[in-house]
């Protein structure tokens, strides 16, 4: 693969929070176009922090991050433009409760990209159909189930036609029976060649969809590998212990 296909380049990134807590230490990671990278690890290991530094929701303390050819934490970077090319899906959906589902999808295209209302509407309806919620366009988020809300949130991110999608534990807040419908949407995205970074505890999904799985612990990337080896014969003691625990509790 050529250099130009690297969409995300994290180099020796450190992050210390204002209260002195270390979020990341010396993290390096590369994600190429079309790649699906899953990030797993115990709670508090820095998975969210890493994801949130990618679109500068969190500033970093050391190192450099390049996304889509731009230096994310360079003050000269037009962050709003960069963020528009980077979709993000949150554990708690974060839909805009005062707007209808359709308006949730149309807001950013209209306000940020200046898309004409008719065009934005068309695109929003097409995306809702894609996530199986065409009939919910005029509802408010509060009227939907968790699984439906998360699918709307994915559609909302897709409405900006991003080149990369970031997912931070997208199914962790869902009732178990709703997890599948969200993962299915994500599988479709992956099969269409979307570049994705997914923080998840869904080992089945990671194993089936990811090109690479990354294990984090205490702010560091401890191990990364192709899913096959990662889950069956990882060359790392701590990952084996973690997987043993997770599989036992599952």
């Amino acid at each position, binding site marked *: 693969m050529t250099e130009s296909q690297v969409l995300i380049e994290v180099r020796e990134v450190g992050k210390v929070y204002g209260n002195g807590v270390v979020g990341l230490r010396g993290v390096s990671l590369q994600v190429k176009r079309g790649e699906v990278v899953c990030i797993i690890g115990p709670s508090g290991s820095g998975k969210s922090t890493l994801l949130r530094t990618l*679109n500068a*929701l969190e500033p970093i303390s050391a190192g450099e991050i390049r996304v889509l050819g731009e230096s994310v934490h360079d003050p000269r970077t037009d962050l*709003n*433009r960069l*963020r*528009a*090319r*980077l*979709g*993000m899906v*949150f554990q*708690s959906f*974060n*839909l*805009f*409760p*005062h707007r209808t589902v359709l308006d949730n999808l149309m*807001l*950013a295209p209209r*306000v*940020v*990209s200046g898309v004409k209302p008719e065009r934005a509407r068309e695109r929003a309806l097409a995306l809702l159909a894609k996530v199986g919620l065409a009939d919910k366009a005029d509802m408010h988020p509060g009227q939907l189930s968790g699984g439906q809300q998360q699918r709307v*949130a994915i559609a*909302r*991110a897709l409405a*900006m036609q991003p080149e990369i999608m970031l997912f931070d534990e997208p199914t962790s807040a869902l009732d178990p029976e709703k997890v599948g419908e969200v993962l299915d949407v994500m599988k479709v995205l992956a099969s269409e060649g979307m570049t994705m970074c997914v923080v998840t505890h869904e080992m089945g999904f990671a194993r089936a969809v990811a090109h690479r799985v990354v294990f984090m612990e205490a702010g560091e990337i401890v191990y990364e590998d192709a899913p096959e080896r990662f889950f069956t014969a990882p060359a790392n003691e701590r990952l084996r212990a973690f997987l043993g625990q997770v599989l036992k509790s599952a």
Partner: protein
Amino acid sequence: MRSNPLAGRAGAWLIYLVVLGGIIGGLYVATQRIDYSWNWQRIPQYLISNEGQERVAPFDGFVAVAEDGHSLTLKEMKGSRSITIRDFDELLVGDGDLVFENDPLARKRGLVAGPLLVGLWMTLKISALSLMAALVLGLLIGLGRVSRNSAVSGLAATYVEVIRGTPLLVQIFIFYFFVGTVMELSAFTAGVAALAVFTAAYVAEIIRAGIEAVPRGQMEAARSLGLSLPQAMRHVILPQAFKRTLPPLAGQFINLIKDSSLVSVMALTDLTKAGREVVSSTFSPFEVWFTVAGMYLLLTGLLSYLVRRLEKRLAHD
């Protein structure tokens, strides 16, 4: 029947009426003991009077009345100006009279607003104008309070502290005597400005609380979609904050109407000042002040009614 909820409500109403009646009766007995003679019949003329409207002389001059008595011309004494008045019912001067500025010339009969109603209108105008100014100023300062720029948030916090830490009456004096003089403001403008500046501090705190009550994830979601900070504020945060701030804002604006009575210390005839003037000409302080209180209650009651309706409408969507 103890378990009947209707009986419970009826009982509560009964107690309410008995206590209220007791208080009113007590007031009546109390005024009996000080030998106060009630003159409620004097009050209506100060709300609406049928004395009609007087036309007064705009300058010193001599009057000339037309032969049919239906028009009057005033010629300036030391100049060449002259005016003619035709629209009147009753002459108050005679042909050839010398009158001075502000002397009454003629009267037009009919119903006109009495001093209390004029005062109410002034109170309404002052309150409405300062309300709008306080909303705008309060929004800016509230946004300043939540700014990540510590110079901006520090300035906004200082504003709130200073305004909330000093009495409104003192601020009104400062606006009237200092700011008003320096900037050559009319008493009206100074009064509106003082009330707006005062109320804005409270509005700012209400708006800050409203913004902070919106979950952090809302701002993050908006920013992750590429919205700038002002865009996220305008389209995502403020609409959600507004709903939460409506009840406390309404309370603040009811306070504003009541606080506006303090501007009567300036040369402004608002409802309270009008009340004082009417008292001094009727010697019926009890009736006048009860009437004035009732008129304030009408304003504040109307406002809370409107806000409740707006809240209901917002709750639906």
